[in-house]
């Protein structure tokens, strides 16, 4: 059977053709600048995130985005370190959002694969890795700055300051729909949901929006959301906040809201694959839905302040390769790589300590959505989160549209004490986490 398959795949003509191509490429290579073909030096980057399981939607699309990033960077000559070109290669490890598997993965990536930098989703998996990071001095990144603490000096949150940026959506809502004054909220009871609950509570309080009930926490294993939605709607709220529910929850909750006759405002951190929600509800129902993650074909991302390279092309290429799979994290890990690449080239080294110092040099960095500052001492005990502007996205006529960029530091300067108060109430400050 195998020989049949092989004979079908590799004909004599194809074998000769391939050999000729390889030989030709070698000859051609000698004629081209050395820079384009200095592939003998390779820098390996670890990708340690859930690629399967319930949280895979916040891991796998990021790896897919990184592959595009690597192809584009390598095609342009790779990484220039001390005048020499280096190709970038990703080594992925599926941690299945399990702390034990994340620890095993981190050890393997460092010891066996020799990676120089490891990107993670973080959250429940970071405690499994923390000791390895401290012992090895490896540079890590997380998408969830609630992982940051003074004990982890080599952990950065360079892409998103989840959940703090959620304040921008509430601030925009209060400015543009000031008549909406009451809200309810639900969230899954885990490391991702709780700090986000504290953030929305602070943002609503700052905006003068009254919470009609305590946030409704549900078990992450919940499959039927009808009772959750019935409870949410019992108080007749003007706003329903979906907090940072995983996309697998946002969809059924929205369906239930639609089926149980809700006609008010919905605000959420994410709305991955929102077009599917529109299909299962209606354009009218989803009109005005506020969330925080834009499609990268949005013209607003072509502004001068945007540091993400060729966002519209990136989005088009991503959708060509992975149709219908664009999600919140598709661009984020790639944007972290932009920052890491800039740091490595500035340091003239790929060693973790040198890159870390270069990335944080001057206290500022080029975040995907504009220049930003390293921040976080108040909340995380360490200035390892890159914070600046964040987009507010609204669904209009079935399509996500950026309505503006709002400053997270500006909000924090005015209402930071509220955020600390609610984070402390939910035991989410760095000195309260176990």
């Amino acid at each position, binding site marked *: 059977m195998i020989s049949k398959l092989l004979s079908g795949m590799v004909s004599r003509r194809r074998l000769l053709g391939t050999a000729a191509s390889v030989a030709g490429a070698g000859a051609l290579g000698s004629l081209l600048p050395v820079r384009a073909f200095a592939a003998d030096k390779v820098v390996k980057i670890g990708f340690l995130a859930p*690629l399967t399981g319930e949280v895979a939607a916040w891991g796998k699309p990021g790896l897919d985005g990184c592959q595009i990033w690597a192809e584009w960077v390598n095609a342009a000559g790779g990484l220039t370190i001390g005048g020499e070109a280096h190709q970038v290669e990703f080594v992925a490890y599926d941690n299945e959002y399990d702390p034990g598997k994340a620890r095993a993965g981190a050890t393997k990536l460092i010891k066996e694969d020799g990676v120089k930098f490891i990107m993670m989703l973080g959250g429940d998996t970071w405690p499994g890795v923390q000791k390895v990071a401290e012992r090895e001095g490896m540079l890590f990144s997380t998408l969830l700055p609630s992982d940051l603490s003074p004990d982890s000096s080599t952990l950065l949150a360079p892409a998103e300051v989840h959940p703090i940026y959620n304040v921008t959506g509430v601030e925009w809502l209060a400015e543009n729909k000031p008549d909406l004054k009451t809200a309810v909220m639900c969230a899954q009871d885990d490391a991702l949901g709780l700090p986000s609950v504290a953030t929305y509570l602070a943002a609503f309080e700052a905006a003068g929006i009254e919470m009609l009930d305590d946030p409704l926490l*549900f*078990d992450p294993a919940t*499959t*039927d959301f009808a*009772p959750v939605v019935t409870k949410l709607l019992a108080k007749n709220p003007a706003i329903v906040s979906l907090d940072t529910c995983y996309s*697998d929850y946002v969809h059924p909750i929205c369906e239930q809201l639609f089926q149980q006759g809700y006609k008010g405002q919905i605000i959420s951190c994410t709305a991955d694959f929102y077009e599917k929600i529109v299909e299962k509800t209606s354009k009218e129902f989803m009109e005005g839905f506020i969330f925080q993650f834009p499609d990268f074909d949005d013209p607003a991302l072509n502004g001068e302040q945007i540091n993400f390279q060729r966002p519209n092309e990136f989005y088009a290429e991503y959708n060509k390769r992975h149709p219908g799979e664009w999600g919140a994290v598709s661009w984020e890990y790639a944007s972290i790589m932009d920052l890491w690449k800039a740091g490595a080239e500035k340091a003239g080294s790929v060693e973790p300590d040198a890159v870390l110092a270069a990335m944080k040099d001057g206290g500022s960095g080029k975040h995907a959505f504009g220049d930003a500052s390293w921040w976080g001492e108040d909340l995380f005990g360490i200035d390892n989160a890159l914070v600046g502007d964040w987009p507010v996205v609204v669904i209009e006529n079935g399509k996500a549209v950026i309505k503006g960029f709002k400053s997270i530091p500006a909000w924090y300067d005015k209402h930071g004490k509220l955020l600390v108060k609610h984070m402390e109430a939910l035991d989410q400050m760095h000195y309260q986490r176990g």
Partner: protein
Amino acid sequence: MLELLAQTALNATYAASYIALVAVGLVLIFGVMGVVNFAHGELYMLGAYAVVALYADAGFPFFLAAAVGLIFVGIVGIGMERTLFRPLRDNPLGGLVASIGFLLILQSLASVWFGVRMEHIPPSTQQILRFSDSVSLPVQRLYVIVGAVILLTALWLFLKRSRFGWALRASAQDPEAAALQGISINQTARIAMFIGAGLAGVAGALTAPLVRTFPYMGHSVIVTAFIVIIVGGVGSLEGAVLAAVIYAFVHTFVTTFFDGVIADIVGLSLMLLVLIVKPTGMFGTADRA
């Protein structure tokens, strides 16, 4: 308040319906074969993916896809009986361990074929029965309730009125005595697996447009089903149905009036209470328990 109670009762009725289908199948398999089928949640998942493949992807009518889900998963059940459970019949833990291995295989196959992400299955109908401004029942949910009532009634009639049903009950009560009366243990096991697996499959198929359909969706369902059959009495079909109704109503009402995390705690406490007060469950007998 009355409207809130009515809506919650409708939510609970839907939950009781699909939980009862899954739990009755699990009880039937245990009653006849003495096997704790840990892969039962994955049979539910297979039924849901039958709807993904046939209805959402291939465009066949929803009810045809659900019927195929019942039959297909029933046949998978027969395959499990023949290849996993029958060779291990004399090994008390063999069937349990084999079913754990099989559930991992089914999860992996679903991941490879369909991917790990939640499937987006359009409802077969957008119709909603509105009883008032805040009391409603989507017709898609009504299908699950009606489907459960029809199938469980049919099962009851089959067990009480047909010769195969008598044979199944005889095998469940005393396999050796049943064999001495000329009842084929292999055949009754095959029928029990087909019906038990098929019920899980059709539960998954009917609920597929309403729940999160993904390769690991069976986990929470099997946990709920185990709680239900322990409360109802291991081996008792009537107990499984009654316990499904009690569990669904308690869980749904506590979720609505408190929250989902407390509802889980109350559900488990209910199981512990039954184990303390009546270890065989509401309708269980000491023989199988």
